[in-house]
């Protein structure tokens, strides 16, 4: 089991992590961050293997992974 934490104030909602995730664990949040953007959100924790591909593609270094 792995856990992904997204710093929503660093995230700009580009969606590249969603594209990179092989298990489809990430989606764009319906909420806003302080800059008025929709950040990425980590949803299904049962599927996540902690492969780290989302963190590799993130241009804003907003993702931390725990396993």
């Amino acid at each position, binding site marked *: 089991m792995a856990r992904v934490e997204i710093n929503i104030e660093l995230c700009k909602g580009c969606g*590249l992590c969603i594209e990179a995730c092989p298990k489809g664990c990430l989606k764009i949040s319906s909420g806003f961050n302080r*800059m008025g953007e929709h950040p990425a959100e980590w949803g299904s924790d049962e599927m996540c293997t902690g492969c780290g591909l989302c963190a*590799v593609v993130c241009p*804003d*270094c907003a993702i931390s*992974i*725990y396993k």
Partner: protein
Amino acid sequence: MEIIYERPESLKDVRTHYCAGCGHGVVHRILAEIVDELGIREKTVVIAPVGCAVLAYDYFNFDVCEAPHGRTPAVATGMKRVRPSNVIISYQGDGDLAAIGMAEIIHAANRGERITVVFVNNGLYGMTGGQMAPTTLIGQRTATTPMGRDFRECGQPIKVCELLSQFEGVVYAARCAITGPGNIIKGKKMLKKALSIQLADLGFSIVEFLSACPTHWKLTPREAVQYIEEKMVPCFPTGVIKDTIK
């Protein structure tokens, strides 16, 4: 639970001013990760360019100097000669390196200065509003080529790594595309090799990153990544272009 990935120590915990999906963020991160892995944070100096990365000193947690208008390799030369034990990285964009700073980069490469150049190529001038750069693709629409770049009027895109690899002083020249996780990991290996060449005092090394500019390409971040794969990579082939130390 054990942490398996977190922000590198060499990157300050601040929000960058780059647009969503910009490749600069990825290049900043892999550079910071390599500096941490090699344990050279106390002796690294990055020379920031003019362009979107002009405020890099706000993001890196090591010494950063700023040299406007393509004079980054000249400042890096001086710094490396005065302080040869430091690791000097010239961080440049394509407008900065291939247009206004072409003279500096060519002569620094020809002298075989022991510096590492990180070249972020997005095919246009990002900061000033998306004008044509020497690396703009044929037919690409920019603010100054609204009908698309024409060869007879504006020339061909300049392939900087191929151009510089002719010089004997250049020990390592490589190009990678910032598209998927695989290519980003490859780019990190290339940049690590370039920095280890500088640490071994062997010569000039350059790594070019084909980077997305969703704002001025007028695409979404996902479409911009596809644009790199479909349009930029055929013009700028990725891989190691010159490596005299195998």
